[in-house]
């Protein structure tokens, strides 16, 4: 999907992660977040890495795994009303390149954060739980699953 070009996608959410430059934009935004955090005085390097990791994962959790439906009116009478963006991606096909990319990126960020926090146990706990919150919902086994009916409607 290219921005500004007519498309015939019923639900543009399914393709938005495949549009040109979106991966780069995502990476740049993460770097910008990190640089902004680094520029704040009194923030130590380990703290900044943990913050980058946690904020990144929170935002990812919110946009990919919490918000349901589409921001626009789709002509399919609201087929995706109860699906998160992650579930809508590529019409629900598993292990597509965008899905792989978005799964690997938080892992890489986590490894970097672990390295720069010098494996401190507190940071480890925070970073790991935050990582799991975005990794588990991405598993095919959790596709469409709402534990205890949380966020079902």
């Amino acid at each position, binding site marked *: 999907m290219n921005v500004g070009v007519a498309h015939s996608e019923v639900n543009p959410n399914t393709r938005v992660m495949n549009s040109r430059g979106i991966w780069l934009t995502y990476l740049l935004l993460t770097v910008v977040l990190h640089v902004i955090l680094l520029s704040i005085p009194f923030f130590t390097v380990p703290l900044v890495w943990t913050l980058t990791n946690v904020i990144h994962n929170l935002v990812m959790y919110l946009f990919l795994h919490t918000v349901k439906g589409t921001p626009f*009116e789709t*002509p399919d*009478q*609201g*087929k995706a*009303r*109860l699906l998160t963006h992650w579930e809508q991606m590529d*019409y*629900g*096909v*598993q*292990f*597509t390149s965008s899905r*792989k990319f978005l*799964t*690997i990126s938080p*892992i890489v960020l*986590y*490894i970097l954060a*672990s*390295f720069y926090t*010098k*494996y401190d*146990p507190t940071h*480890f706990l925070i970073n*790991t739980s935050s990582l799991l919150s975005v990794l588990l919902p991405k598993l*095919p086994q959790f*596709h469409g699953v709402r534990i205890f*009916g949380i966020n*079902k*409607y």
Partner: protein
Amino acid sequence: STTPDDETVCVYVVITLYFPAPAYHLILEGILILWIIRLLFSKTYKLHETYKLTEKEKEDLIEEWQPEPLVPLASKDCLSLNYDVVTGPPSHKIIINGKECINFASFNFLGLLDNERVKEKALASLKKYGVGTCGPRGFYGTFDVHLELESRLAKFMKTEEAIIYSYGFATIASAIPAYSKRGDIIFVDEAACFSIQKGLQASRSFIKYFKHNDMEDLERLLKEQELEDQKNPRKARVTRKFIVVEGLYMNTADICPLPELVKLKYKYKVRIFLEESLSFGVLGEYGRGVTEHFGVDIDDIDLISANMENAIASIGGFCCGRSFVIDHQRLSGQGYCFSASLPPMLAAAAIEALNIMEEDPDIFAILRKKSEHIHKALQGISGLKLVGEPFAPARHLQLERSTGSRESDMQLLRSIVDQCLEGHVALTLARYLDREERILPPPSEAIPAHTGRGRGTPWTGRPPIAVPTFQQTLTLQTI
């Protein structure tokens, strides 16, 4: 230009940094790295895609399947293959198959079809704009007459805004799915007309039918839903609920109990969509329809839809209500967005029709009087049952006792219609797509009434040859 020394320093630094890493951490990272590698080599697949049928299931399915012909066989005397051809304008008299008849067959209630003023305006518009618009409203299909007609309709109905569609059938069929989506609930009267049924189908919502005009049955359904909602308030919060009713029912010619519906609306927090194709320009002191008839505040109805193909004698349809509601259709009403807009000529004709309706509100009283007159006159025909409100502008005549099958009933009614045609009276058979209707109404003949106005003088024709079956009708019309 790194020297071997630099590399060893790098390796050393990395090792010393990793060295303090606890074992659990190293294991976790190892697992994560393995996961990445596995991910990179995983093949894409679709979830829930394959359901493997067993051999027996396959056999059963093949056994069950009955091949159908691509085009179903139709007998030579099939109704849809034998048209009655109309020549000349279908006003009070209609020329069917070369024979002049009294017109009891079209929905031109106010006689605006052959109104000189309407014709003049339409012709002037034709000369100015040409015939079509060749574009949907969003793509240079919006002409000044469309905007004028919309504001005039809104003013006439005393609502904030109106939106016009280029096809009457598509109006309610587009309006319903514009608001009601998957997961929403629509409560609808069993007798709802075909265009409503198509709208319901397109909405993909849950449809709950209540018995025709039975408010107790509707309340039972609403109560059931209320209990369901209390069990699952989160779901209830994102579920929209609608009641869809017709003002005057096309299939039964009776009126909906609007005041009770409004009460239920506020009690159970549902929205009301009212389809007024038969009642707009007919009921009420000024022809505003069922709301005026009952004295119900029009703001209590969330959406009113009507077509302009009956009383207004143009083409197309409109929806009216609050701007907040109506505006939504400008991007979501499929019939509005994706059809070429209404020909300006027809919009101009509709505006002139509204002018006439506003200038001379007496026509509604006359129509009502005539309707009641016809209703009275048609009663007591042996073997036939009259269905509908006395003040309804169209009514149904049904057989008192079925002759055994729908086909033979239709044949009998058809022969009555044919005999009436012989006697220069044009009636029509109510036609349904038998397989597509949810509840097939009983076979009947639809009989619309006319005001007899619009041609300057009330109609006084010569008395046609009387046919025993419809003698009353005929004597009535010659009064």
